[in-house]
């Protein structure tokens, strides 16, 4: 059984574009201080940032749970929001339901969820229309395992 070394939660507010990315930046700092491999940090913060942007763009609010164990990094992003009608399409690169406003922010080109999945060793998504979406990801610390 993996031993949990660290657990932190972060509240994300929908539409709060100015703060979007602060969670990912903090997680990056924590992992750097713990001397985690730079490639694993890179993957983790891309996941965190894309997930934060999704919450900010689409949801009312969300919670990011960041867990470090002696075996893996886990990120769970649970939001209250519109949910995703077609998960399969949402995971297809290039598919997007973003508005022009989101695209003006530099996001919403149909790469967020695919980027999250690509950088995860394990990826799960559950969504209920009208309620919200939960994305769970895991990155193994030992990539040879």
């Amino acid at each position, binding site marked *: 059984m993996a031993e949990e070394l660290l657990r932190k939660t972060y509240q994300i507010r929908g539409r709060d574009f*100015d703060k979007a990315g602060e969670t990912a930046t903090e997680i*990056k700092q924590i992992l750097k201080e713990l001397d985690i491999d730079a490639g694993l940090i*890179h993957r983790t913060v*891309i996941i965190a940032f894309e997930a934060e942007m999704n919450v900010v763009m689409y949801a009312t609010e969300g919670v990011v749970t960041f867990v470090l164990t002696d075996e893996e990094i886990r990120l769970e992003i649970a939001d209250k929001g519109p949910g995703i009608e077609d998960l399969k399409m949402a995971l297809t690169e290039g598919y997007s339901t973003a508005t022009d406003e989101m695209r003006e*922010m*530099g*996001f919403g*080109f149909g*790469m967020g969820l695919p980027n999250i999945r*690509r950088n995860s060793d394990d990826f799960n998504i559950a969504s209920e229309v009208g309620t919200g979406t939960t994305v769970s990801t895991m990155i193994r610390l030992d990539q040879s395992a």
Partner: protein
Amino acid sequence: MKLAEIRDILRCDVLAGDDDLSTEVDTVVASDGMSEILAFARPGALMITGLTNVQSVRTADIANVRAIVYIRGKRPDEKAVKLARDSNIPILATSLGMFDACGILREQGLKGGM
């Protein structure tokens, strides 16, 4: 190529990090889509973009981009410049468009990040 050379070649103004432009970059990632930058930037790349908001700097920081060149004469707002200074990411701004900026740097030997 040193950032100082890129500044001269693209006729850039330096908006952040002007105290040290000796940093070297070998690869470039260019897009207005931040997820593309996150997906394809090699760590240490130069980022060329027309997106000037605070998210562009966040993206650069998250993607381990070494410096940003804003194109088409666009200027980032004060929040973005401050975040770049705090994150030690130099910012350059050119009046050239994306195609010309990329083409000139490609001719000078810089490579794409993919």
